[in-house]
């Protein structure tokens, strides 16, 4: 296998987090773009759950105790062939007052209990990006 991927179970909620500094040109309208493929499913849907935790320099926030903002969930139909890539856009309505320069932790999980998550087997996440409008 020439690439790295994270496998998300169809039953148990599995998740991963990444952290970064929000670029200085961030203005608004964050949207998560999840690129994935399926291990075996060739029909039905998969739902992704993206959460953010954002802390601005100088905030009176204990980062160790902070929790994620509410979930942002969206689903889509999986590709008709296992191994083919699909991308799902998730509008980050609950963005935790995200601002340029913030310390950001992003959570990505598979929303296995969501009504849109009907596909069987692992979802194989290969990339996650956050797009936004710039200043």
């Amino acid at each position, binding site marked *: 296998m020439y690439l790295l991927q994270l496998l998300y*179970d*169809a*039953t*148990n909620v599995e998740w991963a987090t990444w952290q970064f500094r929000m670029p200085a040109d961030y203005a608004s309208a964050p949207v998560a773009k999840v690129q994935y493929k399926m*291990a*075996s*499913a*060739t*029909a*039905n849907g998969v739902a992704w759950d993206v959460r953010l935790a954002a802390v601005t320099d100088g905030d009176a926030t204990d980062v160790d105790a902070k929790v994620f903002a509410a979930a942002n969930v969206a689903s889509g139909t999986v590709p008709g*062939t*296992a191994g083919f890539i699909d991308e799902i856009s998730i509008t980050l309505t609950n963005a935790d007052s995200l601002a340029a320069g913030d310390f950001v932790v992003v959570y990505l999980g598979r929303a296995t209990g969501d009504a849109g*998550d*009907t*596909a*069987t*087997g*692992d979802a194989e996440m290969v990339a996650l990006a956050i797009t936004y409008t710039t200043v």
Partner: protein
Amino acid sequence: MALDSTNRALVGAQFMRENAEAATYSKAELAAAVAAADDWADANAAAYNTALPAGFRTKATTAQKAALLCFVIQRRSGRLRVEEDG
């Protein structure tokens, strides 16, 4: 005795993890199939027992009879490897 709902869910979950073939059925359809297979096993337990030759039927335990059926079905589906397979 039929599996409870928790164990039926666990069977479905593990099936999904081990399945490598293309799957067009949904999680709900798979769950219904697990329930149907379990119900079928329950409903046909007596017939299976009757089908066994008396020499084995009267001497084997319930667990041994269940294990035997599992071995036969697993071998038929290509999932049971034996020492002789190398």
